[in-house]
């Protein structure tokens, strides 16, 4: 999948300024001396004075720049001293800071996919995208020495070779954009298995869940999906698959069959291959097996989610042999499950 980083350090982003507005021609702009930052500038701006950080950079989009006016800028207020915000550390492993999509088009159109927390952060087989017209600063600290991904796109350039990207990380821009204890390494193989691949982020589970605040679930029997940090209200469908199962095709099928229906318009659905612990007689763990986990949330107590789970289950049974599905079960936070249905 494609995972896109959400925050930016763009000059035009008013949330990056302490006064909540992009500075204009009567304003004095101050960057804290030790704010190491890369700032993308999209258009032309008037400034009265700009104090730069001791280490930093301004990336000038074509047509972008700075000019000064003599006297007052009529399109600006009385003039304030405004600071570029020294935003709190923004971490790679924060699942709230990423958007996922099946391809670049969907990414651009805003057709994002829902994922469990561990998979919201880029998996080893994912293509990572930092928006083309944007600057950023990401803390890549992790307990592992490196963070492997398939590719990384920065400022519209896609890096697919390990050496090229590590060269980029050594440049001034690279150093201002990526910091932290581990290095992002590019060139990890993509997911070659049509039935899906395990994300591989469980090693970073603690770090990922550390930045998640869970809401207290408002349902009888909250569920904890594999790879998620919080108990949720909704339903989980587990699919057992044969070699012919194709995750991408199946994702599209579910989308077309169900998610386009009006009653499911507020549903969040995520599906992926996970390793599910196996339990002998229901409680003695004896290893794990790869299954397709479909997590369904409706933002409420889970009734709609349960309804969809039953629809998916019914579909799997009716068309399982064509789809490569050999078995299915579901659990809902209402307490009901496929065992009782």
């Amino acid at each position: 999948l494609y995972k896109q980083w959400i925050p930016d350090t763009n000059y035009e982003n008013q949330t990056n300024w302490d006064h909540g507005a992009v500075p204009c021609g009567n304003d004095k702009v101050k960057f804290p001396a030790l704010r190491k930052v890369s700032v993308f500038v999209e258009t032309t701006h008037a400034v009265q004075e700009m104090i730069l950080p001791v280490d930093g950079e301004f990336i000038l989009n074509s047509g972008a720049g700075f000019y000064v006016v003599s006297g007052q800028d009529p399109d600006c207020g009385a003039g304030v001293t405004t600071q570029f915000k020294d935003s709190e550390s923004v971490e790679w492993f924060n699942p709230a800071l990423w958007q996922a999509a099946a391809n670049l088009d969907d990414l651009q159109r805003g057709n994002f996919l829902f994922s469990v927390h561990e998979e919201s952060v880029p998996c080893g087989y994912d293509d990572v995208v930092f928006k083309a017209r944007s600057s950023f600063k990401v803390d890549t600290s992790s307990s592992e020495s490196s963070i492997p991904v398939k590719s990384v796109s920065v400022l519209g350039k896609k890096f697919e070779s390990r050496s090229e990207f590590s060269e980029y990380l050594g440049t001034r821009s690279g150093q201002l954009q990526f910091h932290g204890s581990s290095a992002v390494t590019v060139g990890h193989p993509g997911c070659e298995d049509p039935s899906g691949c395990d994300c591989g982020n469980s090693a970073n589970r603690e770090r990922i869940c550390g930045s998640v605040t869970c809401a207290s679930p408002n349902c009888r029997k909250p569920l904890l999906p594999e790879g998620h940090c919080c108990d949720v209200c909704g339903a989980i469908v587990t699919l057992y698959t044969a070699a012919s199962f194709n995750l991408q095709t199946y994702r599209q099928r579910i989308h077309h069959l169900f998610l386009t229906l009006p009653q499911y318009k507020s549903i969040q659905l995520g599906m992926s291959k996970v390793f599910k612990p196996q339990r002998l007689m229901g409680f003695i763990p004896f290893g794990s097996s790869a299954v397709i986990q479909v997590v369904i949330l409706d933002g409420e107590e889970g009734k709609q989610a349960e309804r969809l789970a039953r629809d998916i289950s019914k579909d799997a049974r009716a068309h399982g042999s064509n789809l490569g599905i050999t078995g299915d079960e579901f659990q809902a936070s209402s307490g009901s499950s496929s065992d009782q249905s």
Partner: protein
Amino acid sequence: EPGDTAQGRNKRTVDNDQPRMQSENGHLVFTTGSNKEIRFQTSPSGRVKVDDEDLTQLLKQIKSNKEEIDDIKSNGGGVPPDVTNKLNQLDTRVSTL
């Protein structure tokens, strides 16, 4: 811009990119990517000054210096006093022979 839109796919080299104004440990650095220029465009009444020096003016001076040097190389400069003295001396000696 044409070209800028096509950015996504094929830009392999690291340095083929937007110009930057950077600060490096307090140094102010202006950079451009490969094949790109840094240009100073002055208007007749506007000027670019580098620490009180008028850049445009001085660049003209470089060329006029070059012209004067070329002139000196072909036509000579002033006459060195030693030469003048020697010529005068010889002149006197020849006149009194």
